């Protein structure tokens, strides 16, 4: 039912049959099998070039080591982080949040959705580049397909039609890339303006901004202002989420940190090709309580 409803709406917007969209995305998967193999060969050299950073260990040990690193929740700088969090909150409360509320009042929801989706589409080249650097060829393939399908059928990326054909959005940033290459996270770090990160991911963010292919190419064609406008508008749209987190919390700092760390663990696991199942947090586990109690205790520590 879900797909039917969405496809009917897509037909309304793009005037195409559902079969056409499904076929197109299906053909995309089939027709690119050979190009994927070639891509792997070309990029193997690039990945090997970074091999010096990857610890030499067997696959299972490496996966386990990466999983432990993905769940690293050290907050050694908590005092300074809380102070920076308050400064960020102050700026947010007096300037960013009011601007975001005005934006939400002036710009109707459907238009905000299009701006968000368009902004996401502009991120795809950066995600693609990181997927390649991480050796995630399947993710790179999907990301490339998404960019192509959404840019053409999604009217320049305004509609995420690729998700309907099974091309789900992938994660891909330089912090992840550094993680896959074997770099440790370093302590949890609340960055000025950017907010929650850790040292590795903070550096990754800066590299992502400086190395974003879209920022090199597109301004020459459309100018700086349209891109800046989309970025600012999409950013204001995200502020609502941050306000939500803050307003519903009895300790916003702890909530932001926990939310960031759990989400990040999932993204890092995705980059490393492992799956970390979200923890089962219970005070009194129903089954085998004696065996699970210590685990719950250690998890509680990790979440802090």
């Amino acid at each position: 039912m879900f797909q039917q409803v969405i496809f009917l709406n897509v037909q309304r917007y793009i005037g195409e049959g559902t079969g056409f969209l499904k076929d197109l995305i299906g053909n995309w998967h089939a027709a690119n099998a050979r190009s994927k193999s070639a891509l792997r060969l070309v990029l193997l050299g690039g990945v090997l070039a970074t091999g010096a950073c990857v610890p030499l260990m067997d696959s299972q040990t490496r996966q386990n080591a990466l999983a432990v690193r993905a769940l690293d929740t050290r907050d050694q700088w908590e005092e300074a982080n809380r102070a920076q969090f308050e400064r960020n909150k102050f700026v947010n409360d007096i300037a960013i949040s009011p601007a975001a509320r005005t934006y939400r009042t002036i710009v109707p929801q459907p238009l905000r959705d299009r701006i968000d989706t368009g902004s996401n589409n502009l991120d795809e080249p950066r995600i693609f580049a990181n997927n390649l650097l991480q050796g995630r060829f399947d993710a790179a393939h999907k990301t490339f397909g998404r960019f192509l399908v959404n840019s053409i059928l999604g009217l320049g990326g305004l509609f995420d039609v690729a998700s309907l054909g099974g091309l789900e959005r992938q994660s891909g940033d330089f912090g992840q890339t550094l993680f896959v290459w074997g770099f440790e996270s370093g302590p949890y770090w609340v960055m000025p303006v950017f907010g929650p990160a850790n040292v590795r991911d903070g550096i990754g963010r800066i590299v992502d901004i400086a190395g974003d292919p879209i920022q090199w190419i597109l301004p020459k064609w459309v100018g700086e202002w349209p891109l800046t406008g989309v970025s600012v508008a999409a950013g204001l749209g995200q502020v609502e989420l941050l306000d939500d987190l803050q307003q519903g919390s009895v300790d916003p700092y702890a909530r932001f940190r926990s939310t960031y760390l759990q989400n990040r663990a999932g993204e890092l696991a995705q980059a490393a090709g492992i799956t970390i199942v979200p923890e089962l947090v219970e005070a009194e586990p129903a089954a085998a309580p004696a065996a699970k109690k210590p685990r719950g205790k250690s998890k509680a520590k990790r979440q802090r």
Partner: protein
Amino acid sequence: MISQNSRRQFLSFVAGAAGGAFFAVRPAAASDGVDAVRSYYRELAGLLKQISSASVKERYNRLSPVVSRAFDLNGMARSAVGPGWASLGGEQGRVQAAFARLLIANFARRIGDFAGEVFDVDEKTESRGGVVIVKTRISRTGSSPTRIDYLMRGGKVIDLYFNGTISEVATRRAEFAPILESGGPKALVAALEQRGSSLLGEAV
């Protein structure tokens, strides 16, 4: 958004096992969990259409019975406090009541701009011990869907995972721990009640 790669084996990471213990998660047949989430979404979708323009307080009043039926709110409060639950003594009931009020009030505040979202519940579930994970996606036309997974026991929600990774109970536990450490159970009750009142626009 975190998406699953169907080719990869679905592995669980046991956090306590820093040595790297993994165990496989068994796929489960469609169960009471799926039916329960479907029933909850059906009720919710109908209700959201009626209350999207109502005040937060009114939304809270209408949502309370629906959420209370679907969620094991008392169990979630217990889990959010964690191993120190027994030491709360006589404050346990107050913590549970204030926790339920905060969760529903926060939900009531956030669902203000309902815009015809479509709720999709995956038939396939996964089971871990005595619990079942039900995967769902919420989407608006032309936008990337948001994944929300529900952890179910006995047909009731005992936790939910935003994007499949962010546990509501784990996040609440992270919030509660410093308050319990510095001020004890009474401070936690006061913080929960104050936040709940603030969300509902009531005098503190």
